[in-house]
């Protein structure tokens, strides 16, 4: 067998590591295939693993637990009887701009109750980015955290999703989400309606609704970084955030 060239060598090693993870019943480590062909090898390997006789039997405990979780989910109101069976095929970035469009539309008095995908044109202007950057976990997913109706203009609502704790902020113009973790020493911030600021219970720091530091902690002279922003999107009246 002739020695492989370097890019092929990398693909061989990545595939072998992927197979090792599958065989060890580990969740496969994430990496990026360099080509569509390489992805197909991963899919083929996953399929070889999944095709072993009787290996696809589910864990009864998992099935029972999931059923309990489903039974515990409160049934949402179903005002509109038409829900598209197709799933929105919109990139995250486009969704971000569309969130802005949606909130602007609501503020302008447009009737609610339609999906974000109905907007024919994305909102102009740059997408929302925070000076602190966005919390961008590469391996995240969208978590549903609240109904849009529960976060009317001017309101701030705490949420937790996965490992993330944050606040949804409806400015009346757009829906933002920021981390609820103080950038000083990690205490969880609470929202003060009266002061319209996030306050830290530990050392007295305060942050603007947009995440910028308003007051520093007591006896700490350095300015604090702003609260990281969290990506949000709205679909069919539900607010989702992107995190792990």
């Amino acid at each position, binding site marked *: 067998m002739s020695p492989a060239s370097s890019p092929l060598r990398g693909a*061989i090693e990545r595939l072998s590591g992927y197979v090792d*993870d599958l065989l060890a019943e580990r969740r496969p480590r994430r990496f990026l295939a360099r080509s569509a062909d390489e992805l*197909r090898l991963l*899919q083929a390997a*996953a399929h070889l693993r999944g095709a072993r006789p009787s290996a696809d039997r589910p864990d009864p405990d998992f099935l029972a637990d999931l059923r309990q979780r489903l039974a515990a989910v409160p049934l949402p109101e179903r005002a509109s009887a038409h*829900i598209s069976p197709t799933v929105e095929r919109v990139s995250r970035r486009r969704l971000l701009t569309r969130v802005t469009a949606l909130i602007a539309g609501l503020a302008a008095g447009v009737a609610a109750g339609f999906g974000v995908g109905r907007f024919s044109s994305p909102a102009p202007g740059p997408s929302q980015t925070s000076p602190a950057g966005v919390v961008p976990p590469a391996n995240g997913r969208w978590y*549903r955290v609240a109904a849009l109706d529960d976060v009317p203009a001017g309101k701030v609502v705490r949420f937790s999703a996965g490992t993330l704790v944050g606040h949804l902020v409806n400015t009346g113009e757009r829906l933002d989400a920021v981390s609820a973790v103080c950038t000083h020493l990690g205490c969880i911030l609470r929202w003060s309606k009266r002061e319209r600021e996030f306050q830290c219970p530990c050392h007295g720091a305060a942050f603007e609704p947009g995440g910028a530091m308003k007051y520093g902690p007591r006896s700490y002279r350095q300015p604090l970084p702003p609260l990281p922003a969290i990506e949000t999107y709205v679909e069919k009246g539900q607010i989702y955030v992107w995190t792990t």
Partner: protein
Amino acid sequence: MPDGQPFPRPAPQPADASPLERLYDAVGEKLYRFFYRQVGSREEAEDLTSEVFLKAASLLDTSRDESAQRAWLREVARTALADYWRRFYRAPREFAEETFRPPRSLRDGPTEASRADQLPDLLARLPKNYRQVLELRFLQGCSVRETAAALGLSPGNVKVLQYRAIHRAAELGFAPEPGEGRESDEPGF
């Protein structure tokens, strides 16, 4: 009922099961099996199954009939699977859906508990050295080192052989087959 019931007692069904719970009871296990055969990992299959049903918990239109609910769930499942593979290759979702088709031998419905001949069938179509390395790895779960010892090769050569064998398996049974309908990719309900 006399002693020695001839049939297992059916699982008790609470009378107040919601439409979502009824849907889950009908197809939850099938969906898990579908995902498992696609991603080859119990944890990942459990996550995907949970993701689809939790999405259904908020978005399923329970006013529609059951076949419409199932069709909706299949679509969500396919999207979730495409998104899963996009974690390994940043391509448009449509691409990830298009690239992947289960091999013909694995496409039958997931209702049977055991399809003991599937993987051996696939392996039987491969050249001997490819079949050996895949049998040792995927059927017997040998490490690269153990496989190398069994075949009298270096670990590096085992990795190369394994790469080529999976490549051939993909060509034989896993490649997209033009002209086929999409229904065979479905979760089987």
